[in-house]
């Protein structure tokens, strides 16, 4: 599918996040403090819970349900450490955010 425009940086301000549907996948766009833009899966790998309803604190994303936390700079779990999030390639053109939804697949954890 290649890169697809998802939104503008005006839609997701620094320190904020929003979920979108891109190429049949639910994608979370997080605009981290400092300006990095990360595209990851919108649903927690643990259960069917929207990560956008959790809390974003600098580079750490916490799911509201069971307090799972993730480092969005790497998309690896902080707690539990075995958890992982998908990481979709991101390209910025001016204020436009493009991602490649085929660049990864949503992860599922069991515990």
């Amino acid at each position: 599918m290649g890169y697809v425009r998802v939104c503008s940086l005006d839609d997701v301000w620094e320190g904020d996040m929003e979920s979108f549907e891109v190429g049949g996948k639910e994608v979370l766009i997080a605009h981290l403090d400092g300006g990095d833009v990360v595209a990851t899966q919108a649903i927690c790998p643990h259960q069917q819970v929207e990560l956008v309803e959790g809390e974003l604190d600098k580079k750490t994303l916490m799911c509201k349900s069971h307090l799972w936390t993730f480092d969005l700079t790497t998309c690896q779990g902080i707690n539990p450490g075995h958890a992982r999030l998908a990481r979709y390639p991101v390209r910025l053109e001016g204020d436009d955010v493009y991602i490649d939804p085929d660049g990864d697949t949503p992860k599922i954890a069991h515990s």
Partner: protein
Amino acid sequence: MTTEHQVLLRGTGVRFPCAEGDTLLRAALRAGVGLSYECNSGACGSCRYELLEGDVRTRWADAPGLSARDRRKGRRLACQSEPVSDCVVDLSSVPEPAPHLPIRQRAQLRDVHRLTHDMAEFVFTAEKHAAFSAGQYAMLGFPSGIERAYSMSNLGNCQREWKFVVKRSPGGKATSILFDGLDLGETIELDGPYGQAYYRAGDDRDIVCVAGGSGLGAMASVVLGAAAQADAGERTVHLFCGGRAPRDLHIPEAMAMAQRRLRALHVHTAVSEPDSADSESHQGFVHEAVVAKLGETLTDFTYYAAGPPAMTDALARALVLDGGLAADRLHFDRFS
């Protein structure tokens, strides 16, 4: 002959029958398909799904388990959906085999033991079996059509015996039936077992059980589960019980038996009402008592918890966020 509808989980090839009037979640579990869920009551939101084809009747349209965003995106709760035709649904995950298969059966009230001023243990004999794991719950259905989830306080057994510790809730319809409207010998409908916060015997760590209110029943069951293991003499258990004042607290008699089998059973109590603590109880909330008692050793244990949502939420934050406990070493079913 009841009507059945076929449910297909898209992208998995998994298919199961759902009897007319049964919910998507319960029908899946009865067939051994392990959908994710916790409360089976519309509150936790763990059983969200999308309906792709077919029709369902929604039991509780305003169930708090769905956020405004979920509703906007057309998501539904499997625990509140009754298929009325064949359906195709999307779970966006592949279900694992369900470890417990709930069934519906009649159950007769055999005995009632008063435990505190507002808690009692109700003993039922079911018509088919009492197969469940320590820490699970069942849905009790009363003649008026009211249904509530209550945790078992005993262990699965061959006597078909199901025990429940229930706390009378002021103005609560279901608990007023149990406490005031049900005579010994009367029958109700029992559907279970349900719940994911059951005792994991394969986990070798020592355990901590934290109970608030009628969560005492589920935690007593988990303590008994640990004490029933062949290597119970190698296992240490901490049981924390919280209430507002000393009159809310009760330590079940069966704990004495568990204490003899385990290497050690440490019972701790906490009371939250200011200046209400007696010499034995921690003054404060039960999650504070856990942190104060276990201190540096907090991360050495696996935790089980049951009680009011405010208690389990505060405990989860204290253990996982502040205490650094691995998030998957705390087992409780969210009812909020």
